[in-house]
């Protein structure tokens, strides 16, 4: 039915539900909301298609009741709604299609209650991540949730996509921090989940909605746990000859029950990036621009080109680049792999934990590099994202893939993905988000082609190849970026028969299929 209603008619109908300034069909709004940060959308953008499928209307609810009314209207007209927070997702989860209505939740961005005595906070979904941490910090509290998207992402987006922050090893992922939700289902029902404390009352309905990416309900409020802001942070860097040795060190201290906030093991090439100059660090692996800068410096006789031309030319020969990274570069630099470990909390406890980890790492063959690598990482922990622009401006593309598995399959997974995509794109990785039972691998790949259309084909080929390799190697296809559109073809392999359970829930909670359809293989 939705397609039979004109854009103007939809806007008029929505204008009778909401205030005028809560509804827009202006061209710049429809273009701006036509994509999130899925790099495939950026390649399309570079091809001159900034909004291949813009939404018909954008709306800004201000209350839960507004959301209820929107859902009722959408169910009545069978018009799909696409919940939208910061639009920072990288899997196309917030990308609409023609005929759909984007529901921007950023006007619901208040802290409703900061419950200090019980270390809880009730917050609306549109709260910006950085602002949230700033406000909590003024009360000496923290969520401990620091995704690299923190400047642009929202609390609702974190919950919808099962986000992880840079300190997740200590504080957990967002699903470990949430104790309750208010959700509007596809039938317009308002469901409140959670209990004052731990409960033995059947399934945990909160977790049903976390990670559902707006397909089962629209999150309108969350109750989250908060913790005292750390009084001290201790960082230490270690060198290893091989990735496998670094992984063994992490496994050992994680299985001793130690809980560092930061654990990052960079593979050989990533180490070169992580230890080089300002503006690098964190997920800097991404930073092909740095990569190329370093390569250009180290291999000057072989790479006489500079900047844009060098980047494009080099990325067009991924096999050569990967061989260089695997073989020649570590020999040239002699750096091996870098492990950064950080602990935090009360000073004596943080130091004691750091000391205990230090013993374990040295016992596993690590070389002590002192505090500087970690301090460098902390200083530049968000810098990496700034580098994306340079890669796309140069005609290339860059993306990241975060997968996970248990310790016994980690190296196999790492090698399988690298081997599979090395002929197509330049690839590197670091290991972070560690658990007693396993760890996540954060791959960064960068490629280039002669024109954006070829770039799109290459991009799709890389993802299909990489995800197939992950599935074959027994890994999970997403640790914290979510599924959206980009990974949905692999949901069957990932979930098996459980996917049907998900689809059944969808039919119960959203019988008209109006909530973010076309995502997550639903």
């Amino acid at each position, binding site marked *: 039915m939705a397609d039979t209603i004109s854009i103007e008619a939809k806007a008029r109908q929505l204008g009778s539900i909401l205030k005028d300034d809560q509804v827009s069909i202006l*061209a710049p709004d429809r273009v701006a909301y036509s994509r999130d*940060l899925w790099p495939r959308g950026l390649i399309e953008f*570079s091809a001159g298609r*900034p909004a291949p499928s813009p939404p018909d209307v954008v709306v*800004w609810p201000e209350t839960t009741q507004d959301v209820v009314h929107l859902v009722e209207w959408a169910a009545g007209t069978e018009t799909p709604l696409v919940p939208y927070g910061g639009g920072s997702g990288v899997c196309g989860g917030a990308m609409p299609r023609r005929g759909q209505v984007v529901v921007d939740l950023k*006007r619901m961005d208040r802290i409703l209650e900061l419950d200090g005595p019980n270390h809880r906070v009730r917050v609306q979904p549109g709260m*910006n991540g950085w602002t949230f941490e700033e406000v909590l910090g003024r009360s000496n509290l923290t969520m401990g949730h620091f995704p690299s998207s923190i*400047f642009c992402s929202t609390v609702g987006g974190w919950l919808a996509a099962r986000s992880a922050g840079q300190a997740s090893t200590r504080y957990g992922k967002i699903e470990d921090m949430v104790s309750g939700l208010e959700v509007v289902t596809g039938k317009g029902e308002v469901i409140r989940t959670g209990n004052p404390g731990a409960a033995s009352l059947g399934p945990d309905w909160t977790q049903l909605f976390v990670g559902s990416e707006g397909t089962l309900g629209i999150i309108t409020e969350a109750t989250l746990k908060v913790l005292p802001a750390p009084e001290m942070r201790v960082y230490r860097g270690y060198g290893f000859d091989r990735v496998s040795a670094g992984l063994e060190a992490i496994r050992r201290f994680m299985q001793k029950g130690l809980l560092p906030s930061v654990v990052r093991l960079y593979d050989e090439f990533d180490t070169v990036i992580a230890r080089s100059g300002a503006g690098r660090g964190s997920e800097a692996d991404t930073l092909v621009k740095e990569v190329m800068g370093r390569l250009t410096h180290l291999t000057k006789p072989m790479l006489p080109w500079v900047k844009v031309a060098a980047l494009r030319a080099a990325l067009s020969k991924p096999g050569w680049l990967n061989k260089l990274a695997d073989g020649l570069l570590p020999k040239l630099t002699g750096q091996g792999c870098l492990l950064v470990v950080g602990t935090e909390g009360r000073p004596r406890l943080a130091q004691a934990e750091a000391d205990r980890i230090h013993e374990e790492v040295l016992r596993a063959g690590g070389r002590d590099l002192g505090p500087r690598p970690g301090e460098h990482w902390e200083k530049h922990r968000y810098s990496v994202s700034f580098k*994306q622009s340079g890669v796309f401006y140069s005609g290339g593309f860059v993306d990241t893939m975060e997968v996970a598995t248990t310790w016994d399959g980690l190296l196999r997974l790492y090698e399988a993905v690298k081997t599979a995509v090395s002929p197509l794109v330049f690839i590197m990785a670091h290991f972070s988000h560690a658990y007693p039972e396993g760890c996540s691998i954060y791959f960064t790949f960068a490629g280039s082609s002669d024109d954006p259309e070829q770039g799109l084909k290459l991009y799709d080929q890389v993802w299909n190849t990489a995800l197939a390799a992950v599935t074959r190697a027994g890994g999970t296809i997403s640790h914290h970026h979510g599924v959206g559109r980009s990974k949905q073809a692999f949901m069957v392999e990932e979930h098996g028969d459980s996917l049907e359970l998900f689809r059944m829930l969808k039919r119960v909670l959203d019988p008209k299929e109006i909530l973010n359809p076309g995502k997550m293989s639903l």
Partner: protein
Amino acid sequence: MLDDFEKELAYCAYCPKLCRHVCPVGNAERRESVIPQAKMAMGHMARNGTVSLTEDYASVFFYCNGCGLCTEFCEHDIPVSEVLFEARAEAVARGVQPKTLQNFADRFYARNERLVRKLHGLVDEHYFVEEAQVAYMPGCDLIDDSPDDVQKTLDLFAAAGVDYVSIMESDLVCGGYPLWAAGYQSEFRHVAEEQARRLSGYRKVILACPACVYTIRHVYPKFGVNVTAEVVHVSEFLDTIAHRLPVKQTVQAAYYHDPCYLGRWLGVYEPPRRLAGLVTRKVLEFAHNREQADCCGGGGLVPDVAPQTASAIAERRLEEPNQAGVGVVVTACATCVKNLGRAGRDMEVLDIVSLLHRSLE
């Protein structure tokens, strides 16, 4: 169009929205199309012809306070507001500027004429001395919205024994910032040339408007216009004579708000704070201060284009003193006083000149 900024526009267009959290307009509107990344992406698309520059698309260029906080945060130092002001000029050239800015130049000149007359009514004629070496130029918003502060400024000069400053005798009370911000570049160039000719008759000119200090010092030269006179903000000048000001501490506590053009753009942070400290026992800092200070919402003609947005920005800025139970905010810009004052019903928002004057012994 916008060829000088091809790389800047593209870099922002491909950026993962890393400065959205500091944009005052973006935070007030909470609309994806007016965060810095999106505004620049629109410029990028208009430049390469992906979209045609209609009034709708051009409108986003005018949702910018020119505060510069995005640039402060950007690791590429992209001068977003400078690019957007250039994009505004493109919009004006094509006649697709917002309706509220149609015929803006005519209104600018009409307002100027009105303010010239008003200024002569505010202070005694003996302050207008043509042969003076040092002149005081109050500026539009001070004359229009804080008219008492003109005489108060002159009183402060006198109290410090400064008798060599006259009010600039001119038929042009503005440095032209509004024309530059509105994208009326040919009119701006004309005003800049005229104003430069008048200013150059002095050794030093003391301005009350930070935006015009910035404009004269840094924008005029980009238009090939140079001013020989030393141009300073009134807080910078008062700071040099503060030791002679017979003032005492009469205010318990006040927050100091950094005007964007005085602070981030001109780097003047300490003089107004020192002045406030002369008469205030506790000069309190916003959590976001100096280089990181939030905008009041009054700059960039946002109050003309989106008055509710400008008010929302001001209300957000005043949340902190409100929550702290402090009833006084002092700043050093009449535009800030105006915009914050409109939003702060229970808050006293005043210029540093007014605060000092109140404490004259």
